[in-house]
Each structure stands twice: as structure tokens, then as C-alpha cells.
């Protein structure tokens, strides 16, 4: 491994022989500023106009806390479900050859393309107490539509491709010889998966989790149809923001948005740190 000589303080990385370093860096920064930084700082600016006391009052409002809890909790639960089943789906798509594999592969992307409202309405119809699936679950005492469980299901639908599409390429790169060597050393199929394959996939799985989670936190369109939107029970934070906007209560809306922004940023940062740690370690 080559190690760069120790350098004092920050320095620009030496540009490569490919020209345009200054131009590209400048462009990237300007673009990021325009597309992400300005709108987000506008958000913070607006909520800062509230003053600390008012801001805090909105934050600790029961309804806000519940909405944030539901948003982050449901997104987390959905991301966990997606990590498990998305990895299995990716595994099947990568490892097995079966008729219709390409169709199945293409189907994974549908949640990306479908208008989320369509997904929400379709899921609601299925899981409503008189829907195809809801009808079967009713006798078991499981109510999906119009409960937090419905929110999780909508977010599972939305988040699936994020996990599959991040894990799939890494899985395709797995060296078959590594598995073969493990088998000659006496490892069972199960041991190969848990001790060899899974640790190798962990960084990709964490990325998939982060993406699905982030998507879930911000999801609005599909959730509002299936959630029932009962304040304190099944009302998600993005909906609460919209409600505040419709009440022309812009400071409250921006305050909730700012909290969401901060929480999301912290969580993605943590995920990124975990990832760079594992990358450094396993090369």
C-alpha cells in the first residue's frame, strides 16, 4: 500500500494530468450551492426568524414529536425490512438463472418510476379492511391501512429498489474463488454466507439502508393515502409540514422541516462514517 507523505494542514489534492480541475471543482461547488445549499439555508433562515423560544415550543409540541417519531420510526422499520428482503432479492437476481429473470430485474425499478400517489392508492386498496389482502388480515386482528403499519408498508414499497440496486453490483463482483476456498476449508453453505459473503456486502448493505431510510423519512405521496393521517397516531412529519403551510403558518412549517433536516443529516453522517471505516479496514 502506498501512503502519502505526511502533510501539514489542508492542501488541494494534486490535480491529475486530466485538465479542467479548477473548472470542474468550481462548477461542482456552484452547482451544489445553487441546488442544495441555497434552498436549505433559506429554510434555516426562515425558521431562525422565529426566535429560539418559539422554535423550541414547536419542537417539543406533542404533535410534532409524534409526527417525527412516526416518520423516523416507520422509515427505520421499513429500511430494516428492505435490507433483509432487498438483499435476498438481489441475491436471487444475481445468483440464479430462471425464466423471467430480466422481467423481475426490471420490476425492481418500478417504485422509482411510479408516481408515489399511485402506489399509495394501490396499496390502500389492497390493504383496506375490505381489500384483497386486508380482508385476509382482518380475522387475524391485523389492521394495516390507516395505521402506522400501513406507513411502513408504503415505505417498504418505495425503498426496495434502493437496497437492491446498491447491493446487486457488489454482489456481482464477489469472487467465486473466495467461496470455493471457504468450502475447501470445510465451511458449510451457511457459514460461507454469514462469515464470508455477508461481511463483504456489509458496506453496500449499509449504503442501501441509508438510502432507503432517507427516502422513507421524506416520503409523502404514497404515505398520506394509506396512513389515515390521525394526529398523534399516524400523521407523518412531511404531512404536518403541509398542514402548517395550508394554515399559512410558515414559521412552524420551516421549523419542523429544519428539525427533520438536522436529524437526517446526522443520521446520514453516521452512516457515512461507518462506511468509510469499513472501507478503510477491508480495502
Amino acid at each position: 500500500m502506498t501512503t502519502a507523505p505526511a502533510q501539514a494542514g489542508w492542501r488541494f489534492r494534486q490535480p491529475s494530468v486530466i485538465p479542467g480541475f479548477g473548472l470542474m471543482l468550481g462548477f461542482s461547488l456552484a452547482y451544489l450551492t445553487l441546488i442544495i445549499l441555497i434552498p436549505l439555508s433559506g429554510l434555516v433562515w426562515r425558521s431562525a426568524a422565529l426566535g429560539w423560544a418559539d422554535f423550541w415550543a414547536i419542537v417539543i409540541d406533542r404533535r410534532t414529536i409524534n409526527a417525527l417519531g412516526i416518520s423516523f420510526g416507520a422509515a427505520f422499520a421499513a429500511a430494516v425490512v428492505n435490507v433483509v428482503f432487498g438483499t435476498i432479492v438481489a441475491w436471487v437476481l444475481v445468483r440464479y438463472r430462471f425464466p423471467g429473470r430480466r422481467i423481475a430485474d426490471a420490476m425492481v425499478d418500478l417504485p422509482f418510476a411510479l408516481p408515489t400517489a399511485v402506489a399509495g392508492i394501490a396499496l390502500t386498496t389492497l390493504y383496506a379492511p375490505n381489500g384483497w389482502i386486508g380482508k385476509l388480515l382482518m380475522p387475524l386482528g391485523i389492521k394495516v391501512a390507516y395505521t402506522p403499519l400501513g406507513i411502513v408498508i408504503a415505505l417498504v414499497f418505495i425503498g426496495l429498489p434502493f437496497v437492491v440496486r446498491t447491493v446487486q453490483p457488489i454482489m456481482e463482483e464477489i469472487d467465486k474463488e473466495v467461496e470455493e476456498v471457504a468450502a475447501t476449508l470445510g465451511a458449510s453453505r451457511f457459514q460461507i454466507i454469514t462469515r464470508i459473503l455477508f461481511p463483504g456486502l456489509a458496506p453496500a448493505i449499509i449504503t442501501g439502508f441509508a438510502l432507503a431510510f432517507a427516502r422513507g423519512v421524506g416520503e409523502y405521496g404514497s404515505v398520506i393515502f394509506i396512513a389515515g393521517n390521525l394526529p398523534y397516531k399516524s400523521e407523518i412529519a412531511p404531512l404536518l409540514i403541509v398542514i402548517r403551510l395550508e394554515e399559512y403558518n410558515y414559521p412552524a412549517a420551516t421549523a419542523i422541516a429544519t428539525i427533520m433536516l438536522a436529524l437526517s443529516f446526522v443520521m446520514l453522517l453516521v452512516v457515512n462514517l461507518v462506511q468509510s471505516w469499513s472501507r478503510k479496514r477491508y480495502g
Partner: protein
Amino acid sequence: MEVRITNVRKEFERFPALHDVSLDIKSGELIALLGPSGSGKTTLLRLIAGLEQPTKGAIFFGEEDASHKSIQERNVGFVFQHYALFRHMTVADNIGFGLKVRHGAARPSAKEIRRRASELLDLVQLSGLEKRYPAQLSGGQRQRVALARAMAIEPRVLLLDEPFGALDAQVRRELRRWLRDIHDATGHTTVFVTHDQEEALELADRVVVMSQGRIEQVGSADEIYDTPNSPFVYSFIGESSSVPVKVEDGEVWIADRPIGLSAPHVPNGEAVLFFRPHDIELLDSCNGCIAGTVAASRRLSGTRRVELEIGGERQRVEIELPVDHPAAQKSRVAFRPGRWKLFPVA
């Protein structure tokens, strides 16, 4: 452990990769499978490991038929060309992996596994690197770790698939000597695949020359080099020159002239004469010899390689001359091969 391969045939989707191969590997032997790519040498190695199943035939480990045993049950050590180390594990964990995945009483204690790993690291001369990750090692070091990992399970056979193929020439030569030492010290029955004949001849007790899914010849380096039993082995191992000839009543003819070689046991008809370019006797007067005009001359480090055009059919042969030999400057050279062999044209 003795390994016996009897009449093994392997097809990949109807395409035969091995035809009816039989081979006895003695216990403690270091044996090389040598051949060009596509000769089936790697397939044979994978069949022994159990990574492939034979279409026909059987493989015995000692007296026991191993053909239908799973890879896990065979207890073989396999080393791949590209190391196939577990990237997320330290060197010590890589080496201990085969012991750690054992169940129940067969599994040594964590302390014992650590002890065994560091013992093997000493053997492969990498002591002190227990805590490193594979990404932090050089190619040669990685291959040593791979070998230590394979030896950790006390394999019945050690199988190496082009173990030095990905390394540069210097490291290769070094590791070659090192592998021989390790083999002599541990006495594992070892089969390695290579396409590098120098490696095979230098390292192995016996060399198995393979071509197109068949074994051409099995023998020591001397046997393979000095008495090749087929045109393929003659031309594949070492340098060789060949000329089409005719045999009549035990005399060898090129075009319309006898060349002074007698082959009493070869039947009359077309044949090909093989000899080593350096193993020739230069003649002043041509009274039964191969003679030709110099068509090209190249300087190799210690010798001069001369291409001669002989006979009327523009047939070319290569011979080697000492650098300062006057014949190299002549336009016409006559010689007679020292050691040679005739293979009748079927």
C-alpha cells in the same frame, strides 16, 4: 495421502474438457500438471478438490472413493492464482478460518487456533503480520498467507492452481524455491498446475504433461526432457526443431538424400524428425548430414540461433551455434543432430 484418478471424463455442457484421464499420485509427492491453456489441467485439479464432479470415472483418496464426497468432506487445501483471501479478516483470522468453522469437538480452542496460525506464519516466513489485512500485503505475501491457510486444516492433499501466475518473475523464482523447501519440510502430497515449464521441471518430482484434455506423458524432469514420447511433448518442453523426413529400410532421408541417421525399428514411410537446436554436431564435409543455407541469424544471450533453409522445399530448421563459431558466418552449414527422435506421421 495417495490419490488415484481412474478413467475420469469431464464434460462441460457436452463439451469434453477431459477424456479418460488416469493418474496415480504417490503419497508425499510434489507433482506438476503442465500444459497450455485449455489442456484440462485446471479442470483436473478442480476435480480432485471436488469443486467439479466427474462425468465419468472415479477419484480415490487412498482406498476411499472420494468422487461423490462433498468439497467440505474431502479435506483438501486449495490455493488459487489470485489468492482468494478473505478481505475482511486479518491474516491470522484467514489462516484460522478452516479450524474455526469446525463443529463440536473437532474445533480447537481459540487459543489453540491462534497458536497454530502463528506457527504457520513462522513456516511461511511472515511472522509478526498476524494483525494485517490482506490489502496491506504484497502479492507474494498474500500467496504465502493463502498457502498457510490451506495447510492449517492438515489437508490430505494440497492443490495449487497456478500459484505463482500473478507474481513477477523475481518473486516467482524466490517462492518456487521456498515452496520446495516447505514441501520437503511438511511432506504434504502436493499437486500444482502451471503453464510455465521451467517452474514444473525445476519444482516437481514428476511432471504430468497435458494437452487437449489428455495426459501426454508423466515422468521426471529428465524423462520428460530427454525422452519425450510424443511430438507434442517434444515441441512443448524446451526448444526443439523438427523436419519432415522419409524413412526407407531403416535410413532417414530428407528429400532425395540420406542424412546419415539410421532408425532400424521405424517402419517405412513419412515421419517427422525432432531434435534440440543446441544438441547438434557441426560437420565440415557433408557425407550424410543435414545441410542448408543460412536464412537468418539471431544472437541469443550466450549463443547464436541460426535458421537454415534445407532441402528443396524451403523447409526451415533452427540450430544453435557458439557465438564465435566460424560456421555462423558461412552461408552454408552442415550438421547432424546428436540426440533425436522420429515420430511416424499417422
